[in-house]
């Protein structure tokens, strides 16, 4: 019996690296595995429905980016390589990982002198997904915290419309935007009129330099109405270490069907502050002059405000801030995009102008020979 318990228990090395695992309630483990086991039969039933020419070879995807930033006259050169590795194992298991190599190079004296800096390496996620059935995907490993609209969906450099992250970004994503542990996610209900999606996760504390994470538990749910292209969602997260604070978010996304406009907004709140951002992006599809040229442009505007509470901090500014920004992007090809934006930061520490110029290149390469047609 003792031996059986030892086999089922968490290895000592794992307990040492992830001490929070050893404190998980025992009832959670059988519940977690029961949910996974219950989904196997459902997958086997609808796997035969997939009859297409789609191949499942390992893929390396991601982007190269180069952004030149000027904040208050100080220049920063930021080259970035973000590879995404996807390794499928059959149709129901997927290993995926994203790593960021980001260089920050600034002039030694702020506005003069030679450029110096270093390259930072970050593992955004490294996870094993089990696409169990239509309602559930189980994720184990390091994953992006599904908090709000921005962190999981809009943060990649080749997706974001404006290069600066929102002022409220640290709410629900502190310290590194990722969690180490397990997550269940998927579609709770799907009809012709609406779709309800969910995520629920538990992360353990980890202080390893490349894999920092806090002990948190939380969830996210959203409802999407396809007819109106409207999505509304709520996120909740409870920090289970330190001050044990709550993080909350509400978000809205709307793409009016008759207009090439993308509207997104998010409100975030926790013990250290609250704030919102609201963003609109427009691509002129039928410009009266040279429409083929102008439809590749994208005009973006964003307004955001942050109000500190209890002195701010924990990744948030220490004083109230607001920042309006406008941007102009141009999609040269499907995979190349030029980007530019200007913003002004209003802060009790001083107002500053922010400029960003750069480009992103996005790629998808197979890592294994397979069917070509």
């Amino acid at each position, binding site marked *: 019996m003792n031996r059986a318990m030892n086999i089922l228990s968490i290895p000592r090395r794992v307990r040492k690296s992830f001490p929070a695992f050893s404190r998980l309630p025992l009832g959670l483990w059988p519940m977690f595995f029961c949910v996974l086991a219950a989904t196997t039969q459902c997958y086997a039933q609808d796997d035969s429905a997939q009859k*297409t020419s789609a191949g499942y070879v390992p893929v390396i995807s991601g982007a190269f980016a180069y952004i030149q930033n000027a904040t208050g006259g100080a220049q920063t050169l930021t080259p970035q390589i973000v590879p995404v590795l996807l390794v499928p194992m059959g149709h129901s298991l*997927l290993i995926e990982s994203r790593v960021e190599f980001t260089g920050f190079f600034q002039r030694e004296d702020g506005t003069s002198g030679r450029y110096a800096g270093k390259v930072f390496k970050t593992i955004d996620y490294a996870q094993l997904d089990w696409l169990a059935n*239509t309602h559930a995907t189980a994720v184990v490993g390091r994953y992006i915290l599904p908090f709000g609209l921005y962190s999981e*969906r809009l943060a990649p450099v080749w997706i974001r419309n404006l290069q600066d992250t929102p002022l409220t970004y640290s709410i629900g994503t502190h310290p590194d935007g990722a969690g180490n542990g397990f997550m269940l996610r998927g579609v709770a209900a799907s009809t012709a009129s609406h779709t309800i999606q969910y995520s629920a996760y538990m992360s353990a504390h980890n202080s390893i330099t490349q894999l920092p994470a806090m002990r948190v538990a939380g969830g996210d749910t959203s409802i999407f109405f396809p007819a109106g292209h409207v999505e509304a969602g709520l996120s909740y997260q409870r920090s289970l270490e330190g001050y044990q604070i709550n993080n909350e978010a509400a978000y809205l996304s709307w793409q009016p069907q008759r207009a*090439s406009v993308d509207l997104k907004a998010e409100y975030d709140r926790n013990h250290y502050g609250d704030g919102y951002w609201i963003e609109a992006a427009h691509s002129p599809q039928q410009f009266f002059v040279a429409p083929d040229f102008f439809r590749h442009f994208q005009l973006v505007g964003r307004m955001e405000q942050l109000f500190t509470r209890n002195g701010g901090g924990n990744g948030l500014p220490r004083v109230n801030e*607001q920042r309006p920004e406008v941007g102009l992007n141009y999609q040269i090809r*499907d995979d190349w995009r030029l980007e530019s934006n200007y913003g002004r930061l209003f802060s009790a520490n001083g107002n500053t102008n922010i400029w960003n110029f750069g480009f992103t290149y996005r790629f998808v390469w197979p890592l294994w020979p397979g069917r070509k047609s």
Partner: protein
Amino acid sequence: MNTHRRIHCLLALVACGFCLIAALAATGQSSPAATGPSHAQSAASTTSSAGEKVFMANCARCHTPPMTLSPRVTGTVVAHMRVRARLSREDERLLLQYLAP
């Protein structure tokens, strides 16, 4: 402090007004639904498959349509997006039939 709050409220109203104006200005144009490269937009106007609807409703919510995908990587990429976008198995099947028939 009250003055600061008033300024914040004013800025918030300006932001809402900006987005409303942007939406109203663009609503007058009879263009396809999502922002993105032209080839996918033109394809959207000519076909109306269920897979395309899934594509425009879910994928275009977050990003512009991707470059043309090789069939050999399509299954992997769609599986990845099923996890990211929390798609159902039916949505995945329709997307595969649309992207790699």
